[in-house]
């Protein structure tokens, strides 16, 4: 599928800030499932900083804006050809060994309920187990926007039984770890078809390390594996680490955020 992306993030500060530094994971991953036709990221008034491929294989691009400034617009526009690989992350180069992803972070720390949930799943072989874990998470946490916030942990989301894709992903990472399967958080875009599939065009899902297959994506929120409707941007141990845009402003201005994402399928 050929997908067109137009993603605009506007930051407003109620008083001018001295400067802003951002770290972007806004470039589509290089793997067999996607091929970039065109891609451009712009930052209003921004100066491009260093760029590099990190240990997880993602392209990280730094930006800085010299203040005083009270509004910044980050715009991503591009076109990507995608292929359905049934969730497999094929031909993706990375330096971090899978074992390192077994390390918990604050939002993916387990509690008794998560451990129980993880053990409730069963499957014949690691791939089946991963599917079962993803289903278990989807069953335990209903998709309900607005019920959780940016800092909700996996344990909290499970306790209240509802959440959004971020919560599903954190919960799946936690459960996979209980079963000794490395897992991580993936951020990207999702093209929503008109068949009623929900969701934010700016999306998140999990990847679980399956021996013999490598990394395999699972999207509990949509009860599927990522296919050609998905664009993968980057990964991390949790939502914060995998965030497409991380930024810090120097100064006292209060920040307000305004995001619009449009994903369209090109007529071919």
């Amino acid at each position, binding site marked *: 599928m050929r997908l067109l992306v137009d993603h605009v993030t506007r930051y407003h500060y109620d008083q001018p800030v001295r*400067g802003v*530094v*951002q*770290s972007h994971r806004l470039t589509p991953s290089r793997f067999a499932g996607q091929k970039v036709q065109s891609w451009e990221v712009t930052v209003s008034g921004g*100066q*491009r*900083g*260093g*760029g*590099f*491929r*990190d*240990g*997880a294989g993602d392209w*990280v691009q*730094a930006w*800085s804006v*010299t203040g005083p400034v009270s509004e910044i617009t980050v715009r991503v526009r591009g076109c990507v050809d995608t292929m359905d690989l049934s969730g497999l992350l094929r031909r993706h180069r*990375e*330096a*971090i*060994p899978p*074992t*390192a992803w*077994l*390390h918990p972070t604050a939002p993916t720390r387990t509690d008794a309920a998560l451990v129980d949930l993880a053990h409730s799943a069963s499957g014949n072989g690691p791939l089946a187990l991963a599917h079962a874990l993803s289903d278990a998470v989807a069953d335990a946490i209903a998709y309900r926007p607005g019920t959780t916030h940016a800092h909700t942990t996996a344990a909290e989301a499970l306790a209240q039984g509802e959440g959004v894709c971020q919560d599903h992903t954190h919960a799946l990472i936690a459960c996979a770890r209980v079963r000794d399967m490395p897992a991580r958080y993936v951020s990207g875009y999702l093209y929503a078809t008109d068949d009623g599939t929900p969701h934010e065009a700016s999306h998140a899902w999990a990847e679980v390390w399956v021996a013999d297959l490598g990394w395999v994506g699972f999207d509990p929120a949509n009860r599927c594996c990522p296919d050609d409707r998905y664009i993968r941007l980057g990964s991390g*141990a949790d939502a*914060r680490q995998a965030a497409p845009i*991380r*930024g*810090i402003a*120097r100064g006292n201005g209060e920040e307000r955020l305004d995001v619009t994402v449009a994903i369209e399928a090109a007529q071919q």
Partner: protein
Amino acid sequence: MSAYFNEMYDTGAVRPPYARLRDWMDAMPTELRNLKQAEAEALFRRIGITFAVYGEGGDPDRLIPFDMFPRVFAHDEWRRLERGIKQRARALNAFLSDVYDRGEIVRAGRIPERLVYLNEAYEKAVAGIRPPKGVYSHIVGIDLVRTGPDQFYVLEDNCRTPSGVSYMLENREIMMRMFPELFRSNRIEPVEGYPELLRRTLASVAPEKCKGDPTVVILTPGHFNSAYYEHSFLADLMGVELVEGQDLFVEGEFVFMRTTQGPQRVDVIYRRIDDTFLDPLCFRPDSMLGIAGLMDVYRSGGVTIASAPGAGVADDKAIYCFVPEMVRFYLGEEPILENVPTWQCARHDDLKYVLSNLPELVVKEVHGSGGYGMLVGPKSSKEQIEAFRAKILEEPEKYIAQPTLALSTVPTFVEEGVAPRHVDLRPYCLVGERIELVPGGLTRVALTEGSLVVNSSQGGGVKDTWVLAE
């Protein structure tokens, strides 16, 4: 005679390196000694060295007791130590380069995978990033103890930011001011070149993007830190700026410091703050000490950070056991310096051994420091041992155990005159384009009779450390 090796007297006779100190010692009446001791303290106060070493915390205005009796190494003794220290520093850096790259040592099964990759100090954020010249730990502090004329053991490695080097320099300075005659009668190798050597070492690992003379700075957590004096002392001697996080900012591909004449680019940051505080964008978002965006600049080759983020994975107490293995694996050499045999309570068999031999062992917390949370079996009562046994059983993986080492002694001025006291040694090995070691280090001494704990928070003091010229 005790069972401990006395570095000055060997079976009654004075060992050669100490020969000339004997007359000096004998010729010093108590009154003069007290006078000199007071003079030394006044000098220290005046210079302002009143900080804790090794992150022990405590009152920042406290003076660490300085003992005037020097600790002496013969030229040959030191050459062997030097070779061993440099070898170890090379192996530790080779290990770091490897685990952040292909992890050959893990693939070869020489170190357990999880011990490395699930270690708190393994930093995913720098995997696949090669620092300039491949150096991760630019200042390696190796803590050594001696048990006999030729027996040295490494107690632990410090690959992050070993402290205390200002004591090495100040102890020497004060001895030279107070006893110039000693430096005439003994040929003692100088240590005063350390700050310049450190500056050159750091300059040699400037990033490739840096053209011309690199700007080096020392990054301190701030003036409330107990080691602030050391930071400012070193910066002054090296002739570089001492900066706090707020003095630096990221713009474009580089890091700059705020000066009265506008932004000035910084090429090498010798940081004295922990990894997690370096950059709120990459690590702890609540860090007020760091510089937002620093890690992106570092990882894209715009600045060098010394020690490199993630270097701590090499000096972990659990990894320590494998350092001799690193020497063999990376260098194809036999280790010159030995490790202390260590039992890991996380392992079932080791735990069993530890529990049945507690009265003879020293038990330490894996992540402890400063001599706290530690059991010295032979010096403990039955009740203390039993209480500790309960603690170990509760969380065995938190503890390691080692035999009680018969630490060597060096004559030390005490209330009653001169008496042997136990010592250890921390030399500071510099790793850049070249690998360098100034002849000397910091000798810590347990001032309490019979004590084996040299930490300043537990009654330890410091001594000048001499290496005699050939």
